């Protein structure tokens, strides 16, 4: 049962091949048996999952059940779940149990999904390897001495290890797509504003966007259809008509214009990864698409701009974790300053502290224009790059990551090397565009991801493009572990 896709489970449940309770029990058992090897969950909500599954079974028996009724999923532990600890993989929030659900949790619950638990991640979503968690690093099911990518490494690893068919994740600079690429899963970061951020602990508000990780584009479409939509509780939420993302999946790709940015195929790209991407692009030509070389001239500025804007926003977003109202508080503070200093010093991990410091510096008097303002100017240029590209092409394709998964600890001492992991993904966050990663090959038995970048609100077409590829190839069905 655990290797089934969401689409297959929907059929199985409706045809009464198995019940949601059976499936849920089975996956909970697998998590219990296997997850110590991957560390992809922080919290498993067994009792709640079984209650939800039972309720789903009753609704399924009664007919008229919503789309995802009885489908087991997991939520990244940065997404608030009412009554269930939401730690952000930080000591700071180790004891934090929100009294509310994030909007996407509400929506997925309403769609009938069953929550198995909360997945591990980089602390406060800051990282590209899922090694900075207070609860220990996540391991890549394809090779447990390798990282699964980050920051949504737990959500990706849980899907890759066949512990859950789909999960929610967040992507601020590539945190859905990069781990999806490194674990052979399908991950989609929607257009900024497509999915509500309400109830998702903020890292960098203007870049954060939640999306699904699943085994197929079709499954991602199911999850996105449930997650997306206008939310009056999030002022940056887009008020646009809701699409059923599963509808156009089989549309033909004849005449599709795919832009290939020359900047994404230069120095730093692993040649064997490049070869996998080239092969995937040839497959698209076979499917009727046309490849065009394009240029995104400001690409090389994306990482520096990101590492000014994201930490700047983070430095303010994380100010609330001060030991005063909730979360971690240091023992016996001497005075208020000491309470702040030690609560934050002891509660936050190294990378979080590094970014808070960088962000505070970038915003400080005398440096604001040189850093923050300059970065915002770069951001506008990057947006313009994409805007001109989309005048010529329908989608943009390239590698998701420069290379396959690296060894645990390999980049821990070198933050910049770690930051370069997101070199191809960060620009879309700066531009607010949707981006996706789908499996497209293996290098030394480690997965390679093809990135698809779409125009604003063009998720339906991206899913169509991904789905047709997955109909024509088998890379997405390759499994990390013996079934």
């Amino acid at each position: 049962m655990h290797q089934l896709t969401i689409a297959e489970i929907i059929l199985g449940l409706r045809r009464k091949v198995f019940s949601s309770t059976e499936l849920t029990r089975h996956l909970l058992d697998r998590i219990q048996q296997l997850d110590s090897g991957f560390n992809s969950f922080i919290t498993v909500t067994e009792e709640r999952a079984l209650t939800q599954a039972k309720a789903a079974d009753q609704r399924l028996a009664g007919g008229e059940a919503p789309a995802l009724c009885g489908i087991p999923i997991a939520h990244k532990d940065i997404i608030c779940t009412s009554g269930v600890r939401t730690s952000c993989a930080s000591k700071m929030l180790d004891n934090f149990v929100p009294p509310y659900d994030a909007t996407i949790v509400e929506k997925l619950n309403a769609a009938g999904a069953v929550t198995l638990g909360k997945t591990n991640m980089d602390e406060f979503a800051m990282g590209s390897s899922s090694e900075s968690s207070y609860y220990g690093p996540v391991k890549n099911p394809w090779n447990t001495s390798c990282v699964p990518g980050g920051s949504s490494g737990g959500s990706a690893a849980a899907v890759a290890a066949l512990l859950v068919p789909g999960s929610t994740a967040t992507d601020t600079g590539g945190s859905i797509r990069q781990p999806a690429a490194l674990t052979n899963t399908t991950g989609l970061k929607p257009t900024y504003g497509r999915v509500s951020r309400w109830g998702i602990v903020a890292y960098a508000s203007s870049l954060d966007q939640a999306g699904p990780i699943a085994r197929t584009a079709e499954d991602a479409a199911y999850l996105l259809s449930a997650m997306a939509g206008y939310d009056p509780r999030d002022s940056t939420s887009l008020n646009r008509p809701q699409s059923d993302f599963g509808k156009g999946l089989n549309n033909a790709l004849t005449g599709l214009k795919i832009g290939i940015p020359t900047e994404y195929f230069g120095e730093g790209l692993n040649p064997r990864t490049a070869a996998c991407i080239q092969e995937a692009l040839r497959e698209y030509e076979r499917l009727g698409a046309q490849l065009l070389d394009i240029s995104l001239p400001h690409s090389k500025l994306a990482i520096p701009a990101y590492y000014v804007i994201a930490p700047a926003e983070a430095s303010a977003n994380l100010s609330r974790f001060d030991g005063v109202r909730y979360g971690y508080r240091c023992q016996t503070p001497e005075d208020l300053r000491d309470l702040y200093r030690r609560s934050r010093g002891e509660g936050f991990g190294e990378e979080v502290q590094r970014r808070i410091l960088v962000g505070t510096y970038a915003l400080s008097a005398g440096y604001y224009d040189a850093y923050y303002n300059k970065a915002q100017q770069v951001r506008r240029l990057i947006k313009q790059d994409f805007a001109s590209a989309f005048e010529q092409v329908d989608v943009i394709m390239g590698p998701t990551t420069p290379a396959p998964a690296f060894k645990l600890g390999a980049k821990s001492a070198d933050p910049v090397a770690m930051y370069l992991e997101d070199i191809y993904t960060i620009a879309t966050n700066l531009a607010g565009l949707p981006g996706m990663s789908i499996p497209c090959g293996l290098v030394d038995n480690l997965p390679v991801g093809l990135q698809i970048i779409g125009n604003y609100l063009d998720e339906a077409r991206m899913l169509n493009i991904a789905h047709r590829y997955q109909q024509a190839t088998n890379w997405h069905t390759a499994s990390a572990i013996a079934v």
Partner: protein
Amino acid sequence: MEWEIVIGLEVHVQLSTKSKLFSGASTRFGSEPNTQACAVDLAMPGTLPVPNEEAFRYAVMFGLAMQARIGKRSVFERKNYFYPDLPKGYQTTQLNQPIVGAGEVEIYLADGGNKTVRLHHAHLEEDAGKSLHEDFHGMTGIDLNRAGTPLIEIVSEPDMRSATEAVAFLKKIHSVVTYLGISDGDMSQGSMRCDANVSLRPKGETELGTRTELKNINSFRFVERAIRAEAERQIDILEDGGNIVQETRLYDVDKDETRSLRSKEVANDYRYFPCPDLLPVILSDDYIEQLRVQLPELPDAKAARFQSEYSLSTYDANLLTQERATADYFETVSRACNAPKLAANWITGEISALLKRQEITISQSPVSPQQLASLIVRIKDNTLSSKIAKRVFEAMTKSADMADEIIQKHGYTQVSDSRALEKMVDEVIATNSTQVENYRKADEAKRPKMMGYFVGRIMKASSGQANPQMLNKILKEKLDALL
């Protein structure tokens, strides 16, 4: 040397919206601590701000009333600093693009003159919570009921040249916001607070001296006293050849002096940047025009109308229109008795003294407008002398009786019967032969003054009820007949 005081004010006005600036929690005053703070006000992780439309409307109404430029595009920024009663670790406020731009305020001075004070801008922001130091033995309690309450901060140019002008400015702001109904203006409850920037320069000098900022003054009276005390302190330093240190100071009411709170050198770097959770607020011309036509009659317009409609002096008209409640009170009285000048005199005289004595506002006045009108009617038709009228008024402060009831109960009717008056005059002439003799011998010019003696005797004998005009006439006739 002759010194000139230069004063600029920053006035914080709490807007009387039902809910907070960015959350649905109530803004009511005086509730149990932390009963009006929702997850957003507590800055719980994942929560997001949603702007309160009513607050924008109020701010725009204020701007329109001040003839100010309205910021059609305003931007919220984060002002970052740590304080236990600032839950998010930043205050959401407006810096570079406020909702109200430059404007002008006409102020009226006690000597009858007036002056234009320029408004620099006014911006929307959220209030912080309150730290409670009593009852917590070595610890601090935090009440977040006020956190997130909408404020407009009104910043003047340094155009005021005396403490009196500063008070007049503050009163004008108070008058406008209460007229508009956008704030209760209650300074004792902190609905209106004021910071004053005070500097000195030699008279004739155009450059500004070093200023100090007097924080959180919460009454009209203290604004005046605090500025006077600070100006004296600065003069002493300057005349001794010293320099003023730029710093924030507090006014100590008991000692009538200001003292240093913190110097600007160690002031925070607030690291303002645009709040990524809130989009810029764009106001359409239609929206602004709609508010413009809905504005109520404002104090200046009302004062002009009072002058033309009721033939009041400029001074009286300004005095009566300063507070909307006073103006309404006046109009009710004036319409009921059809004697606007008498009404104005009584309100600026007796009523005003009564309110000051009892430390209450006009809406709490024990003498209702209907009562006062009934009294004025009886003054106008000569039933009451002004002396008796004051007694009737005194009775009104203790009961809800109308003038006629009081007159009847106490037998206060004025004696206007000429035969009765003649009898009184005859009697006083008969019993005061020495004074009559003196009157006869006196110079023509001295006689009117001497008549006062007889009037006094008769008034005393009649308990003040004799109609003074008639009495004077009869007495003069009778005395002159003896010449």
